[in-house]
């Protein structure tokens, strides 16, 4: 019996070794033939349906598997992609010429109908419909021309076009095997579009195990033959542990990582095997205070007290190691709505006085939720804020979740205070208010991410007016008034604008493809020979 076991073990060992050897041989020949980029993000996209969720992760995916109509270049100007040219026909109509000879991954030809179909689907998407609300309708003039009509004159239509990634309308038409329509949008659910993808983009999805790894392969029929990109395969792995992600890069297990945790910036910068690229960012990290769940939050004095209790500078300095700009408002510097005079208001005594005035000197209990792999140091920031609120006798019950679960809870408004980071989709101040502080309206999608249930109709009106105001100065004044009011009423609890950092191995040229939106244009990525 023992003899037998031994033989069996030996056989197993031998075959395992043979397999390993064969595997090594295969990998080394393959590596010579093609460039493989192994990259690690803190999390992988939650779905393959690019209209399911309005989030950084999904938009990063969109730029890999799809192409937008236009995109921002380094100088924040519009660069033609699937739209080759555009002109304003009248105040409310824009005509766009589309690129010819573009094929989807499925082999279908890209036409104006796909653009119409995609924008109509965007207007149905619970997450996207609010930003696409200004669009009245889209018509295909001929196979490669579309006309987009807005309800009122809308100055940000091209900004919007950066979010239109035409989808393969023929591929998504009809019924899937389970009888559901192929184009349905199911949030945090299982739909045909969340499992299958056909875009025009530089990469196709070859294999995907959610939360484990996703393999992309270069689209052999990619229309943009001028793209310098020479990466044939991308393997994306989520590594949520900060230290592990950095160690994976420094040990050569992966070639590209994002984000780089602030406490490891120096280490990556000093490493000889890796390089670091940083940019000051425009993503605001803040807390919502839910007025529907907590009676006390209806009192502006309580919200102000919270604003006075939090020390943004300490968080930016200590937890973020200076890798963030402390914020007292939504709009970062350079945005139309930025108000220079709004200052940080950390003042513990004032906070305590305000709590006492509101009748809550003894504080109250609240629940708080934050993601733990979405923003840089998100869980630690939440812990720090919970500790700061303890100073005004607010007892916080904090839970931190991976983002795959967090957004489900967020949509349910499952806690009294919820952390979220927001990058203005249109690079414009109005976007903050429309999504985050506008009165919640399920039909228009306004306030889709307003987990505070703050509602001030006067501000909604002001933003609506600003959206049709073509005079830049007048528009800026309106948006600044919105920002000032939000600050005075302490509608939200802003913390900081998070800086951006990416790191890669030396032979991967990430500098030209990363940008302030944090949507790396990986299709144009060039890898040198090692």
């Amino acid at each position, binding site marked *: 019996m023992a003899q037998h076991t031994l033989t069996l073990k030996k056989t197993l060992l031998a075959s395992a070794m043979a397999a390993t050897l064969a595997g090594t041989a295969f990998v080394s020949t393959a590596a010579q033939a093609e460039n493989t980029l192994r990259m690690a993000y803190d999390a992988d996209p939650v779905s393959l349906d690019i209209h399911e969720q309005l989030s950084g992760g999904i938009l990063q995916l969109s730029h890999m598997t799809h192409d937008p109509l236009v995109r921002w270049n380094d100088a924040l100007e519009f660069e033609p992609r699937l739209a080759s040219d555009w002109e304003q026909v009248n105040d409310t109509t824009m005509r766009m010429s589309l690129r010819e000879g573009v094929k989807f991954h499925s082999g279908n030809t890209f036409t104006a109908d796909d653009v119409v179909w995609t924008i109509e689907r965007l207007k149905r998407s619970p997450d996207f419909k609010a930003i696409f609300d200004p669009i009245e309708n889209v018509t295909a003039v001929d196979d490669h021309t579309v006309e987009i009509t807005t309800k009122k004159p809308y100055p940000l239509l091209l900004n919007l076009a950066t979010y239109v990634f035409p989808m393969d309308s023929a591929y998504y038409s009809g019924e899937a095997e389970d009888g559901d329509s192929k184009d349905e949008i199911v949030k945090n659910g299982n739909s045909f579009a969340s499992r299958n993808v056909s875009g025009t983009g530089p990469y196709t999805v070859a294999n995907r195990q959610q939360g484990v790894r996703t393999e992309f392969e270069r689209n052999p029929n990619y229309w943009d033959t001028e793209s310098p990109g020479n990466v044939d395969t991308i393997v994306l792995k989520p590594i949520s*542990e*900060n*230290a592990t992600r*950095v*160690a994976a890069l420094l040990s050569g297990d992966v070639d590209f990582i994002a984000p780089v*945790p602030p*406490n*490891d910036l*120096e*280490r990556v910068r000093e490493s000889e095997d890796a390089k670091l690229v940083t940019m000051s960012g425009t993503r605001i990290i803040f807390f919502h205070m839910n007025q529907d769940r907590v009676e006390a939050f209806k009192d502006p004095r309580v919200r102000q007290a919270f604003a006075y209790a939090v*020390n943004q500078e*300490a*968080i930016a300095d*200590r*937890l973020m190691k200076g890798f963030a700009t402390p914020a007292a408002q939504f709009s970062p510097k350079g945005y139309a709505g930025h108000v220079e005079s709004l200052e940080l208001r950390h003042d513990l005594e004032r906070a305590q006085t305000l709590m006492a005035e509101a009748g809550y000197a003894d504080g109250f209990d609240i629940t708080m939720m934050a993601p733990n792999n979405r923003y840089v140091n998100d869980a*630690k920031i939440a*812990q*720090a804020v*919970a*500790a*700061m*609120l*303890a*100073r005004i*006798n607010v007892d*916080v*019950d*904090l*839970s931190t*979740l991976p983002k795959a679960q967090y957004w489900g809870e967020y949509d349910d408004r499952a806690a009294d205070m919820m952390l979220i980071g927001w990058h203005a989709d249109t690079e414009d101040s109005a976007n903050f208010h429309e999504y985050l502080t506008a009165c919640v309206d399920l039909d228009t999608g306004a306030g889709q991410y307003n987990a505070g249930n703050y509602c001030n109709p006067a501000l909604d009106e002001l933003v609506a007016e600003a959206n049709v105001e073509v005079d830049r100065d007048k528009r800026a004044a309106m948006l600044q008034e919105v920002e000032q009011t939000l600050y005075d009423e302490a509608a939200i609890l802003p913390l900081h604008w998070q800086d951006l950092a990416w790191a890669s191995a030396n032979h991967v040229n990430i500098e030209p493809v990363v940008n302030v939106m944090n949507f790396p244009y990986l299709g144009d990525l060039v890898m040198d020979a090692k």
Partner: protein
Amino acid sequence: MNAPSSALPSRWERFRDSYLLYSFKRDIVAQISLMVFIALVAVAVLAPWLSPMNPYDLAQIDILSSELPPFWVDGSDAEYLLGTDAQGRDMLSTILYGARVSLMIGFGAVALQALIGVCFGLLAGYLGGRIDAFLMRLADIQLSFSTLMVAIIVGALVKAIFGGETFSAYAVPLLILIIGLAEWPQYARTVRASVLAEKNKEYVDAARVMGLRSKRIMFRHILPNTLSPIFVISTVQIANAIISEAALSFLGLGMPETHPSLGSLIKAGFDYIQSGSWWITLIPGAVLIVLVLSINLLGDWLRDVMNPRLYKG
């Protein structure tokens, strides 16, 4: 007529003359281990009175004093002897409270293991037959899984069913339950073996002839004679349970970071180990090693003493 007291030695006299004490007095390693272990248990139990601050009270934490190094490194603050973690918690206090949680889970889990294991072992060994076969196969099945795997599966199930918040709220009893359930076969097998050796001895036959019930024979007659192996396993098991808890916490399946055990402290500091703030993870790690090592050395000594075949003379 006070003959009985001089004829029968008192408990203390018996202990004083025992081989146990004799061997202990001559074993310097055992003495040091016991001292270290008692000291650690004492500071952990007295943590609320000894520690400079209460790490569970968020109002005492100031982020401005985060990541201060321990006292022997430049830039330290005398107020924080062992430095502070990334949130500004005093490491010394956090470690004291963390050791308390670790020990509580260690002892609790072993008590549960012993309870289940001893009962099953006695039943299997004394009653034999089908009950024996059933219980021992059950133990075999469980032994074929690694402890950590069983604990991870049970922990993940509890988290999935009741949600992470409930898990955090009842983390200590749940971890005791998980680790306790995962390791009972160790006890059951040892006890069963001892019972098999004991049950055919004359005193058991005598008890049976006297008409005593099985339960009484098992617990009052046989059990006391199987205690020495139980003591020996218990020391090893406590160390194992503490390590299991630390491993689970390190994997994020154990104590939450707001209520840290030594394992979750090590996890919390892991992000910083290569970025300069090594003390956040290394000091709790060192405490864990010392704690487990002292228990293991004690167990080693106890095994030598209690095993009659290993008399060193």
